[in-house]
């Protein structure tokens, strides 16, 4: 008999968005019972790896209008402007809350919160805690959440299926990784906050846990994934490992230098104008790739790279503002940025796309909400500005928590029998996969081939032919995945089983990314095509919606909410 537990709200994902949602609901109703289901202990969530900062208007010389416009322009006009308005207005309050909960924001001499410059932001509006912002925010949120007894944690539980009854989401089936048992966790509403899917690419800043699980859950339940063709390459990752070197390095004044010793962003026209290193990420990444293609890169064992030079900042500033960059550089590439430039190249960092949500964080499936990187509320459009995403996790995580609570209050419990049956089906599926020791395919081979095809078809620069090729290859990989064999049949902490389930999710997401990309015949934000290098507002000023269909992904269009700023040429 499958184990069933009941709560008011089920939250899947224990990173910044999930924790913020949990606390937001609790703040309104201290008695609400919340299940926090996370496949890792919450403080291991990938929020922990964010470095540079979180944006919110706080300075006298800044205003909502400026933050909103920077974000709209950064998005290449694909963001929804009503969402941005809400976002910039709520951002300062959210970061203030984190401050009240103990987040150790770096300070000015007078004790006020310090801010730094960031790419695409027109003034210093990025709050920071040295260069460990994600780490501090996550631990602050997690530790703050520990004070609430009504938040019941399901640590190391891997959600594998949404349970839907009478057209409303009622809970999840989740594999307890520790015991190998699948249990049913029910709620009157459900929030997905599982983060991105960078692991569909070989070269990424993302940790191993970022496999698009929540996106796939929603997709399989019939909810659209939106704007998935927009994959952000961060300009500065370490060659080989892909470990992130924060944009704050440039915010603090670092230079990008090619092999000829030239600060090319100031000497050549890459469209970033006087912003130079502080241009938006899509443009800087393209500039770096062009430099490398023109033969002005250094060559190394992991491909060509450029230099990020911080030496002129001096040791004191590096130690105070960028201690983690220094630590990481020393450990992972053997370079002390105080004395040597850091080798860097663009690296997959963030999915602008995600589960299609409206401004209230609600999806098209009643009772289902989503927030953070796994969602696409259309704040980021075709290119996210650095330091908007941590704030997004808070603003829309809180919205998801509040709105999921009010939905839960007005919702029924659904038929427990029906939900239990679904849970049992899912348990049987997972058990079958665990016992699947016959088959011709190996997980690591499928992963390798997936990585290869995603990099060739959905990189910084794209063309129709390879995108189509990638879409076809991913479809084939799905076939091969059905023939995968597992070596590990143990019940307890079977990480191979988890990896196999994650692979299923990654293949879903890869398919959506490739198909969404292949259908957008223009260049916008992070989606840059060599064969159609210009933006085409006539035909493509819309969001891509991608629905699950057993026959293959089905694409639809959704309008962009403008209202304040009309699209114009994006020049800095």
């Amino acid at each position, binding site marked *: 008999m499958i184990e069933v537990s009941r709560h008011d709200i089920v939250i899947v994902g224990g990173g910044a968005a999930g924790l913020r949602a949990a606390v937001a609901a609790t703040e309104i109703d201290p008695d609400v019972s919340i299940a926090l289901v996370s496949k*890792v202990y919450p403080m291991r969530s990938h929020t922990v790896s964010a470095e540079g900062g979180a944006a919110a208007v706080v300075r006298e010389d800044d205003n909502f209008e400026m933050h909103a416009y920077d974000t709209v322009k950064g998005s290449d006009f694909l963001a929804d402007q009503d969402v941005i308005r809400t976002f910039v207005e709520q951002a300062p309050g959210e970061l203030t809350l984190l401050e009240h909960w103990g987040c150790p924001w770096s300070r000015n001499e007078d004790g006020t*919160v310090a801010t730094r410059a960031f790419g695409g932001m027109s003034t210093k509006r990025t709050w920071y805690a040295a260069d460990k912002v994600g780490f501090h925010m996550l631990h602050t949120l997690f530790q703050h959440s520990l004070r609430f007894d009504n938040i019941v944690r399901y640590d190391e539980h891997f959600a594998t299926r949404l349970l839907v009854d009478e057209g409303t989401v009622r809970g999840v089936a989740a594999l307890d990784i520790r015991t190998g048992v699948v249990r049913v966790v029910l709620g009157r509403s459900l929030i997905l906050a599982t983060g991105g899917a960078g692991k569909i690419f070989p070269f990424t800043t993302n940790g191993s846990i970022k496999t698009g699980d929540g996106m796939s859950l929603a997709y399989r339940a019939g909810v659209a994934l939106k704007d998935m063709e927009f994959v952000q390459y961060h300009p500065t990752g370490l060659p080989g490992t892909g470990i992130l070197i924060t944009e704050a390095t440039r915010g603090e004044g670092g230079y990008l230098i090619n092999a000829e010793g030239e600060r090319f962003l100031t000497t050549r026209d890459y469209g970033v104008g006087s912003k130079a290193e502080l241009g938006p990420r899509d443009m800087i990444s393209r500039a770096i790739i062009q430099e490398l293609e023109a033969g002005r890169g250094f060559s190394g064992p992991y491909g060509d790279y450029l230099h990020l030079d911080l030496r002129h900042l001096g040791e004191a500033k590096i130690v105070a503002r960028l201690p983690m960059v220094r630590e990481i550089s020393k450990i992972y590439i053997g370079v002390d940025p105080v004395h040597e430039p850091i080798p860097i190249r663009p690296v997959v960092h963030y999915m602008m796309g995600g589960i299609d949500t409206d401004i209230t964080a609600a999806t098209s499936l009643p009772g289902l909400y989503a927030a953070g990187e796994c969602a696409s509320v259309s704040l980021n459009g075709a290119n996210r500005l650095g330091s908007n995403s941590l704030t997004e996790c808070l603003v829309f995580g809180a919205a998801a928590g509040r709105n999921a609570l009010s939905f839960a209050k007005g919702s029924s419990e659904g038929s427990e029998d029906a939900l239990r049956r679904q849970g049992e089906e899912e348990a049987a599926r997972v058990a079958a996969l665990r016992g699947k020791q016959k088959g011709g395919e190996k997980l690591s081979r499928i992963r390798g081939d997936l990585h290869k095809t995603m990099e060739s078809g959905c990189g910084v620069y794209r063309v129709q032919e390879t995108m189509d090729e990638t879409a076809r290859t991913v479809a084939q990989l799905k076939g091969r995945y059905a023939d995968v064999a597992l070596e590990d049949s143990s019940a307890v902490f079977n990480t191979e089983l988890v990896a196999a389930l994650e692979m299923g999710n990654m293949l879903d997401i890869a398919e959506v990314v490739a198909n969404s990309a292949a259908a957008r015949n223009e260049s916008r934000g992070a989606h840059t095509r060599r064969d159609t290098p210009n933006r085409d507002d006539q035909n493509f000023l819309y969001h891509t919606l991608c629905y699950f269909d057993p026959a293959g992904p089905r694409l639809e269009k959704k309008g962009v909410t403008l209202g304040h700023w009309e699209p114009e040429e994006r020049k800095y």
Partner: protein
Amino acid sequence: MSDGQQKKTFVVTRFDPDRDEAPRKQSYEIPVQPDWKVLDALNFIKDEVDGTLSYRWSCRMAVCGSCGMMVNGEPRLTCKEALSQYGDTVDVGPLANFPVVRDLVIEADGFMEKLTSVKPWIIRAKERAVEEGPMRQSPAEHEEFKQFSLCINCMLCYSACPVVANEPEFLGPAAIAVGHRYSIDSRDEGAAERNEVFRGEGGVFSCSFANECSEVCPKNVDPAAAVNQAKFNAVIDWATGLVLPRGGDE
């Protein structure tokens, strides 16, 4: 970079509670790359040699705190330790002083309870409203607790601590450091509550100042400093309580 020639032998602790009576050792000889970390070798074994090997990892940049293990008898973050510093044979085991769930995976729930028990959140007599804006905190005030706020909860310190090994109630280095971090935060008013916990069973006075926690801390948090400062503060608080009994005391 791929000379592909060099090989190393990894002697890995295996334990499957469904099949094994007790933990056992298993050796894998694999080709290694000169720039690999210990974790890269485990990932190679998992992908290419033995899919049944279980361990935790995620960020591979020494900040998520998942991949702590004993490497040649010392607690280490495996994503941080260069393989080149070890010889031809590397011994990898689960973190010492923890019950072992499977292979290299240890029981972390006990730690989570300890972390929760030190009340690691800001406590204030009166909660501040959002509209009042951020509190002021000078860089000097921030500096006082900054180091202790850098704990990534990797639990290596627990594996090194002789007190943790022998006194199950001991809160341990990381939990005390995190609690102390809040107590000395200028925005917090909860030191008295935490001092009660620190003076309780398994509290700060169980620490015998072995300093091993600080020796193995991968983030230079110096938990030994936190624990011993916490002792000092707990004593001051206790002595003050003797002279000026607080309301509500027994």
